[in-house]
């Protein structure tokens, strides 16, 4: 059975473990060429000339430059300011300047060398602080209460802090890969690795000036996304299609890892400044927060990332007076884009470190200060949104304390720390509390009104048609679960359609923890509606007014006779033809509308909640941090498929710990110094702690069977918890991640060479 709350096997599981699943670079087309990209070697330069020298290239190779574009030179996302190919100037190292295609991968690389590019260097702005002296891409902010009056209150204490987080590279194990060709009738086809088929579709329609129905985009199996296949695949798809147009052949572009790191988007680096006023009992009275994120060379999604950052900046805390000012600045580095968490992990690292700093000022332990200030139902977020009944910050804290005995052990380790020099590893515990707004920010869902279609085929099976991509999270098993549970169909009665814009409606992008909560809800409803049409047809055909029960795929009448739904449905389709139902998302009319000018109102339909405790050992000589155990308590509304749900949290927790401890893009003059997997380090199994997930369930009325979004939530908690654990172990309180041995050595040296008390 595939009931909600059970964990049936995912349909893509066996093909994946036996090597049969076909990813972006796993199939050949007749006559296919291989594309390659000529990339800028300068952070900022005028392009004096881009010359194709075919005589130096392998026979039959083709080249495309900005001069050959059939339409506007922009990848359409929110706007089209992101050049398809650099034209007058190049604004980051690795920016695409020209494209080539040839008969083999090797020949394509040779053809790259046949493109001459003349640069004239221009001044480059390559770091966030320098960029912050220039006009930003955008600004957002919000204000609640009277912040200035609170800071003027002499009875309150004030703590300040500045926190920094760096780039994070997605390192999906499958690099970007896309294949494009033009059919004989001139229609454009694209297949590849992507999260958002209709984003790619929209950008192709824009770039080639084709009618929407003349462009068809299909997602292959996707070897990891994490946001890295939200925005960038549009670029790769346009590139492949340009080469297909120039050559008249199918063209595959598959990045190698080096190219993928150099050329594609990353998590926005951030600098967050906090000023916090609080009472002697540790109650927050005012927070003034400045958030600056580094958007890289082009605006792409930075405005929406900043928006989410501003809305999460004050953390899951109750505070009557809050001011947040945010801006996204421009540097001459690769465009930063979507990455799991989407601006929230950066600001929650900062606010968690700041809360720990407030606690230390009062000699409070990290649990007590959080319990004292955590939002409870009925409290207000800084936007004025009322925390709903499922607000679970306290429950997460209490549960993680119960599992780990955090408070007592943290206190013990604090007291044991001072001056010990016996060469043994220093142990420490860290706590974080976090939340994540599920679904699109503000009025996004209201604007999109995503459709979902269910179709009943001749075999009597119900097919769910959405644009949602299974990039590992398991939508291909969860949607049939939802459809069965809601309608009473059996597991063999429901199939999940591969995302193909030629068949599925635009149910929006696979992002923002919206797949289950928002689109999944429609999947349930549309299945019920279609099943109902079959039941009604059957009653009419039998001339009865007595409703049969529909459960487990069987229609059962009052006399106990059971008929397989599929047989009845097949008979229904044989008479009426194929049936189809489409429903659109209608956001609940409860709550306050979100005002995009003032940032007041309901920013998200609801929030998911979490608390992490991470335990580490720190080598006293090398200052290497070895996480031993991570306990994540997460409140997700309802866990529809507990194995996959826990899997999201296990994986996200490790990705967050990796970001907090190991992962660092080192730049010099806008050039990445560690642009390979040998030098950009993500956690191996040996670097990983035991990860223990505990799910709390408080069903949310706006999600299917109570489910809230899950995918991004765990990305918010790991980094602040692991850095707090390092502080508990060593007394070294970092305000910047990753907590590499080098950075800890700097802090230790500044502390006079001994672990502070």
């Amino acid at each position, binding site marked *: 059975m595939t009931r909600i709350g059970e964990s049936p096997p995912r349909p893509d599981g066996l093909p994946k*473990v036996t090597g049969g699943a076909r990813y972006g670079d796993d199939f050949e087309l007749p006559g296919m060429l291989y594309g390659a990209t000529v990339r800028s070697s300068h952070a900022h330069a005028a392009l004096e000339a881009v010359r194709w020298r075919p005589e130096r290239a392998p026979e039959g190779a083709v080249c495309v430059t900005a001069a050959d574009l059939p339409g506007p030179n922009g990848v359409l996302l929110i706007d089209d300011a992101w050049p398809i190919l650099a034209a007058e100037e190049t604004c980051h190292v690795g920016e695409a300047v020209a494209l080539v295609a040839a008969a083999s991968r090797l020949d394509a690389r040779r053809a790259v060398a046949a493109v001459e590019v003349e640069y004239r260097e221009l001044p480059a702005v390559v770091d966030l602080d320098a960029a912050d002296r220039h006009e930003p891409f955008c600004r957002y902010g919000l204000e609640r209460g009277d912040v200035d009056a609170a800071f003027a209150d002499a009875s309150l204490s004030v703590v300040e802090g500045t926190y920094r987080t760096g780039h994070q590279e997605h390192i999906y194990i499958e690099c970007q890969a896309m294949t494009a060709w033009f059919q004989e009738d001139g229609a454009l086809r694209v297949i590849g690795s992507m999260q958002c088929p209709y984003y790619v579709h929209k950008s192709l329609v824009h770039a080639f000036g084709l009618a929407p129905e003349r462009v068809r985009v299909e997602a292959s199996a996707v070897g990891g996304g994490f946001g890295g296949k939200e925005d960038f695949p549009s670029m790769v798809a346009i590139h492949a299609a340009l080469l297909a147009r120039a050559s008249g052949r199918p063209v595959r572009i598959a990045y190698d890892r080096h190219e993928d790191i150099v050329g594609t988007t990353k998590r926005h680096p951030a600098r967050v400044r906090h000023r916090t006023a609080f009472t002697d009992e540790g109650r927050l009275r005012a927070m003034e927060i400045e958030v600056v994120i580094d958007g890289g060379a082009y605006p792409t999604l930075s405005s929406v990332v900043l928006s989410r950052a501003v809305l999460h900046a004050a953390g899951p805390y109750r505070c009557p007076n809050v001011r947040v000012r945010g801006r996204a600045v421009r540097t001459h580095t690769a465009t930063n884009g979507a990455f799991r968490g989407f601006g929230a992990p950066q600001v929650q690292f900062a606010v968690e470190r700041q809360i720990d700093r407030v606690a230390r000022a009062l000699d409070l332990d990290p649990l007590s200060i959080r319990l004292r200030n955590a939002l409870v139902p009925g409290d207000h977020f800084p936007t004025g949104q009322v925390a709903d009944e499922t607000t679970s910050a306290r429950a997460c804290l209490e549960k993680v304390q119960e599992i780990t005995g955090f408070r007592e052990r943290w206190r013990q380790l604090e007291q044991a720390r001072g001056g010990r020099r016996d060469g043994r590893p220093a142990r420490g515990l860290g706590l974080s509390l976090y939340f994540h707004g599920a679904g699109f920010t503000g009025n996004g869902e209201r604007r999109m009104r995503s459709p979902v279609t269910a179709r009943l085929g001749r075999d009597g099976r119900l097919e769910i048609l959405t644009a949602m991509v299974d990039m590992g*999270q398991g939508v291909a098993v969860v949607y049939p679960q939802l459809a069965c549970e809601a309608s009473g169909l059996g597991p063999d009665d429901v199939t999940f359609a591969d995302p193909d814009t030629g068949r599925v409606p635009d149910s929006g992008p696979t992002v923002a923890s919206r797949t289950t909560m928002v689109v999944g809800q429609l999947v349930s409803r549309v299945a019920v509606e279609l099943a109902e049409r079959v039941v009604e047809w059957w009653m009419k055909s039998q001339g009865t007014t007595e409703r049969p029960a529909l459960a487990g795929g069987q229609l059962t009448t009052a006399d106990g006779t059971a008929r397989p739904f599929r047989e009845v449905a097949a008979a229904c389709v044989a008479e009426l033809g194929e049936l189809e139902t489409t429903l659109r998302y209608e956001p609940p009319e409860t709550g306050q509308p979100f005002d995009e000018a003032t940032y007041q109102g309901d920013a998200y339909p609801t929030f998911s909640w979490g608390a992490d405790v991470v335990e580490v050992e720190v080598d006293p000589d090398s200052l290497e941090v070895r996480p031993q155990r991570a306990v994540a308590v997460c409140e997700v509304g309802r866990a529809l498929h507990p194995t996959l749900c826990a899997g999201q949290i296990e994986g996200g927790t490790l990705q967050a710990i990796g970001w907090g401890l190991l992962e660092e893009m080192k730049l010099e003059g806008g050039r990445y110094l560690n642009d390979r997997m040998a030098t950009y380090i993500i956690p191996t199994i040996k670097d990983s702690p035991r990860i223990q997930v505990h799910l709390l369930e408080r069903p949310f009325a706006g999600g299917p069977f109570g489910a809230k979004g899950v995918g991004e939530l765990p990305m918010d908690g790991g980094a602040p918890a692991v850095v707090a654990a390092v502080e508990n172990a060593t007394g070294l309180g970092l305000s910047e991640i990753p907590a590499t041995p080098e950075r800890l050595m700097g802090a230790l040296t500044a502390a006079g060479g001994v672990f502070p008390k």
Partner: protein
Amino acid sequence: MKIRLTVNGTSRELDAHPMARLLDVLRQELDLTGTKEGCGEGECGACTVILDGEPVLSCLVPVLQAGGREVETVEGLAEGEGREFLERFVNTGGVQCGACTPGIVVTARALLARDPEPSREQIREALAGNLCRCTGYEGILRAFRAGGPG
């Protein structure tokens, strides 16, 4: 040059450049695309295959070196008694996106052939060269534990 090797129990003769990567020969000449390229420099383990019983990184092996030897890829694991482990691997959440999965199940096969009941530490040691970005490794470790190793 002509190279003869055994792939998943079948003898194959091919014409390849002796320094061609075994990875490319498997994927392009033999259409065994289950073996993945994640980094091309021996860091991620996605391209792991079994060469005469030992897991190797096929992106670092010139096909010449595989001449006259036995190669086992992920496609070969589905046959026989290893199937139970693969099904368990799916059920415990060992698979999410699946891009690292072939390398991991191939490495696991080599480990389990040596030691049918490895400890958590032995599993971690054996898989230290296989990066996974989705699972946090817990679902992978559970596949070994649940119901005893296969």
